[in-house]
């Protein structure tokens, strides 16, 4: 199994998000005051400052906004992976997250901007939290 860095707690803003991931849910917030999507999670709305935020569960589908295939890295847990794709994915609910696109035979040729992708939860040797990554649909 992969050995990615785990989230560390206590960390007040991201705990509920990661509890969701552990339960197989990709959670995000919207603001009750201004109705904007709020991501990454915070206790205040990043658009208007309101503390009235509601949690939702994303359907986990979206499009690749941009990506890069990392050919050289010195990050523990990634050095042994070979080339891997870092990406920003725009979820259909309107939030953008940094993630990886996995499951392609050759990430340098098989990933493209606008490509439809779906979340999956990759179990880790490094700890209890799986990591949400995306695979082309």
């Amino acid at each position, binding site marked *: 199994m992969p050995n*990615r*860095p*785990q*989230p*560390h*707690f*206590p*960390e007040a*803003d*991201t705990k509920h*998000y*990661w509890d969701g991931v552990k339960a197989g849910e990709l959670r995000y917030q919207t603001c009750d005051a201004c109705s*904007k*999507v709020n*991501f*990454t*999670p*915070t206790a205040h709305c990043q658009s208007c400052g309101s503390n009235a935020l509601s949690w939702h569960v994303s359907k986990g589908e979206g499009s690749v*906004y*941009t*990506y*890069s*295939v*990392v*050919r*050289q*890295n*010195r*990050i523990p*847990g*990634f050095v042994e*992976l070979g080339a*891997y794709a*870092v*990406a*920003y994915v*725009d979820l259909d609910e*309107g*939030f*953008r*997250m*940094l*993630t*990886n696109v996995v499951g392609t035979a050759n990430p*340098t040729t098989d990933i493209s*901007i606008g490509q439809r992708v779906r979340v999956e939860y990759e179990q880790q040797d490094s700890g209890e939290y799986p*990591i949400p990554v995306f695979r082309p649909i």
Partner: protein
Amino acid sequence: MTQERKAAIAGIHEFPLRVAPGVSAMQIKAASLKAALNDAGLDWKDIDGLYDAGDGEGGGGLGLAAYLGLRPRVIDTTQVGGSSYEFHAAHALRDIAAGRVNVAITTYGSTAASNRIPIGTGGRGGGQSWSANMEGPYGSTLISNYAMVKQRHMFEYGTTTEQLAEISVATRKHAMRNPEAVKAMTDLQFVKVDEITVEDVLESRIVADPLHLLECCMVSDGGGACVFVSPEVARNIKKKPVWILGTGEATKYRENGGDITTSAAAQSGPPAFAQAGVSPAEIDIAMIYDSFTITVATCLEDLGFCKKGEIGQFIGDGHLAFDKPGLTLNTDGGGLSSNHPGMRGLFLLLEATRQLRGESTSQVPGAKLAVAHGNGGLLGGTHTGGTVILAAD
């Protein structure tokens, strides 16, 4: 033009070595400060303003003052990555104009090369924060952030690596005329210490798609210092002052639905040009933070030298090299080919000053106006932009 000349750069120094084993970052800062004061004809005791990005072991606002033996009246420890020094210039202008400071300094020292710090290919540090928890699991290297900007720029505007490679080619041409840059590339064991072609860039290996090795800056040791003074002090310095006409500051970060091809420069540029009372078309020298080719490309667009998405055509029109007509870029050899110890922003101010004094190794005859634009943090992720407009005396 209604240009106000309220503060000037009076003295500069760039630490000459890019591989400096056995020397500390703090020693580089102190040695550079002494040389910059000498360049200005000022003394240690003249300093009354300390600006610092917190680099160096045991440094910062407290530590550096003690280390240097200073009693500053203003201490500003703005740390916003590689553009910190453009922010320092902005704050020095503000503080000098307010009458609080007469002789302000900013210094920089780093031993990133000797310490083998993998700035570009390492990940974000560990630690326990909202950002580490959301980004740490994905192996995003520093370079991959910039690469994602290039990927999107190519997708939206049809920009090509061939076009962006001209930034590397022009910068290397300037570096080969700068003896310190040649020594840097030699000491850092560049495969080829010579001018390069577009083909060389295209054939260099990809570090993070779509960025090639020759589109990436070096990792060096280094540092330097810059002395900012009031108009009264500027009257009695050794060399001609270089005036700070206008400044702008901004930050940008991942936003839902945001445009990754537009940098913080789009916000920091307009107020800087407005305060200076000049337009991009009047600028002779552009010192733009060249961490990567794409950084220069997006910042030139955002500063208004061409429209968003038209950088490829702008480059094709013959700009960049000092002996071609049009805007001239990074005449010291830049971070790509002369000096990048991690926070290059200081060197942008230093080379702009050399050009406006007529001292560059790739001098543009009669250069009168320069822009120094620093980009700190991660283009494509959380970053800052600091714009400084400078004028010859």
